[in-house]
């Protein structure tokens, strides 16, 4: 009995140690534990019919002779792409917006080759990222040593920072526990039962998601509800704010051109609701993406637009229970990018 007790303690402490490690979830992905495999919105709502079993397959690689260096400032939409996805790229470097906002970073440029900065941004984040006062966070310091590309300047953790990182982040533990203990079929069935009960009895689903029954899709509430100032596709956009966003982008272009980038190109990925249901619940899409794309020449940068193309294929570009595009949407975007980056 005491041996069983002892073993249980050891196993539980082992699990506890793992769940306290930030990023443990990501490292478990190769072993089949992936919180997002069935869709990030499904993970909120747990409604069975929105389980998105169509896995996101990486778009095919494109290999041709190297002509230029490509730097991408992007988010979860473009984070999984690598050098071979882009045609003619010699050196490739990716910087996530979130990391750029939290830490300072540098950019080393190879002046013997043309350098292109591709600035990609999901529509729901445009108003957050490009406001004039936000831009300074996303400006890399020039650097002339080391490998070509972005480099985060990580500050060494002090004692309080260390404690906070490994002990005091409840969200890290909760996410890791979810991945380790509750991503099995039985647990998902139980969660789906609860979600179904709440939908049928109280008429409620998870507050993070909204159902679009017509196309059997889930939308992210942040993008559909006009009360969300930054992310909603239906929040009014005044001309003053539009001007400010353009000015912010112009500042970004100016900075990167000054430190040696030859070309800065913007590409916005529309919110699913903006192209699939621009009149969702009788609301009117604020046309954020097309309005900014029309004025791109004022920023001094280029533009790769997929808004019109996605408008043609609509729901076929996105996953059903997820906020992201599917393989078709991603391939479409990559094709457009590779057509445009023809150096």
């Amino acid at each position, binding site marked *: 009995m005491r041996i069983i*007790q002892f073993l249980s*303690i050891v196993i*539980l402490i082992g699990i506890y140690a793992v*769940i306290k490690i930030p990023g443990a979830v990501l490292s478990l992905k190769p072993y089949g534990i992936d919180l997002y495999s069935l869709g990030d919105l499904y993970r909120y709502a747990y409604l069975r019919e929105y389980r998105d079993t169509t896995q996101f397959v990486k778009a095919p690689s494109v290999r041709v002779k190297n002509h230029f260096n490509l730097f991408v400032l992007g988010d979860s939409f473009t984070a999984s792409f690598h050098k071979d996805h882009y045609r003619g790229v010699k050196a490739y470097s990716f910087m996530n917006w979130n990391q750029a906002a939290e830490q300072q970073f540098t950019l080393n440029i190879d002046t013997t080759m043309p350098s292109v900065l591709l600035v990609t941004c999901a529509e729901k984040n445009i108003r957050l990222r490009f406001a004039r006062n936000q831009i300074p966070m996303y400006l890399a310091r020039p650097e002339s040593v080391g490998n070509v590309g972005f480099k985060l300047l990580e500050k060494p953790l002090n004692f309080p920072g260390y*404690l906070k990182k490994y002990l*005091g982040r409840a969200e890290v533990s909760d996410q890791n526990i979810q991945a380790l203990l*509750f991503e099995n079929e039985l647990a998902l069935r139980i969660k789906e039962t609860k979600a179904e009960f*709440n939908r049928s009895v*109280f008429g409620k689903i998870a507050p993070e998601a909204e159902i679009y029954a017509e196309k059997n899709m889930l939308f992210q509430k942040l993008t559909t509800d006009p009360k969300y100032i930054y992310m909603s596709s239906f929040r009014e956009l005044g001309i003053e704010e539009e001007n400010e966003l353009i000015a912010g982008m112009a500042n970004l272009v100016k900075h990167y051109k000054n430190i040696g980038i030859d070309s800065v190109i913007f590409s916005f990925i529309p919110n699913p609701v903006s192209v699939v249901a621009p009149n969702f619940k009788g609301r009117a899409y604020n046309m954020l993406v097309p309005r900014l794309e029309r004025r791109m020449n004022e920023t001094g940068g280029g533009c790769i637009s997929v808004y019109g193309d996605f408008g043609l294929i609509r729901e076929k570009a996105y996953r059903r229970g997820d906020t992201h595009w599917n393989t078709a949407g991603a391939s479409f975007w990559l094709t457009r990018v590779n057509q445009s980056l023809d150096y």
Partner: protein
Amino acid sequence: MLFHSAEFFFLFFPISLLLHYFLKGNFAQMLALTLLSAWFYMAAFPLYIFILLGLIAFDFLGALLLERLTRTGRKLFLGFCVLVNIALLASFKYWNFIAENLNLVGASLPKHEWILPVGLSFHVFQSLSYLIEVHRNKWPAERNVLRYTLYVLFFPQMVAGPIERPQNILPQFNKFQAFNLEKFKTAIYLFLKGLFMKVAVADRLAAFSDPVFNDPDLASGQQVLLAMVFFMFQIYADFSGYSNMALGIAHSLGVKLMINFKQPYLACSLGDFWRRWHISLSTWFRDYVYIPLGGSRHGFVRSGFNLMVVFLLSGIWHGAGWTFILWGFLHGMGLIFENYFLQHWQKEFRMLNWLRTQLWVMLCWIFFRASTFQDAVQLFISLFQWHKPPLLIDFSITEIMYGLIIVILIPLSEYFRWQHKLFLKNSWLFCGLLLVATYLLGNFKSSSFLYFQF
């Protein structure tokens, strides 16, 4: 770490239980519980553990010294210790409030942006209780630093009470009870009952009352009325839920904590209400403030004054804001009025007495919950605006029905002791049903307990 978080429920608590019953010997069990408690505390703001450890060291040594001092020196030294404890609490909790108000009359005091350490008011009051009991020679100063550390840190009650007395809890740390299935069953029942109250009652009702209290000018009269009723039960379910979970967790470790709530919404007078609501705090104020001030021994005026001091302090203890002070003042006034005018009517017209008590309590909660005094006034204005278009709240008719059923069922089940009878009839089945109901009806996404802010 929250009791209803996955981290606590699936890892921390099982490890604590296994370790506690695996280890042999009082020292090993105390050490394990102390380390686990420190770990529990550090899950929120790790660095704040040093503040708590500093307080523990100061009070531990202070009590030892206090015991050796003679009469006058003893009183002075107790005063000094109390001052240090209160100063610590005040610097975190009350400084900004004091500075804000003094700045209104010409001072220019700076404000800070420190985050209040979780449960600091509870730690300070529990430590003060220990110091005062030592000073009164009712409890000897603890010689074992580990035992005293555990007295302050014991994780089931460290963040929101019950505020324990050394007499109740320290002897239990001398010899922990062995595992007992019957007691464990009761512990599970208490925990589940608390969990249900928190996630299936408090957090459900909060989905309606929070938007109304946050936007009092936009809500209609009907909505304000419903929000007032819902909040009355939300705060009860939230705090009594937490207390029951704490009781259950401690019980499973072989430690019996004091009961914090005894069906307060069945009280037929305000005096009775305060004997049933947050008992560990009310008795703290009774024992360490009201009685030393003279209690009810020196006539009506003095007794009224003493009552008012206690309730104003209780208001301030709950929060640094005029709304909390007003809440305490109204309860004090209510009690004084009751003692003076209604004393002879207490035993008759029980239904009427119950109604006027609960109505007063409900009205007072408005000041407790409102963010500002202006919001509280606006709630009263909105209460009478029945033709105003309602505030848009994501709350279905079924949810309103559920809320109303809960509001009716809670006092009824407490009066007839339905839960208790069902538990005695078939405890495992009842616990199983409670677990299923909690899971299906519970909102596990909400954040903290209301009383954690104090």
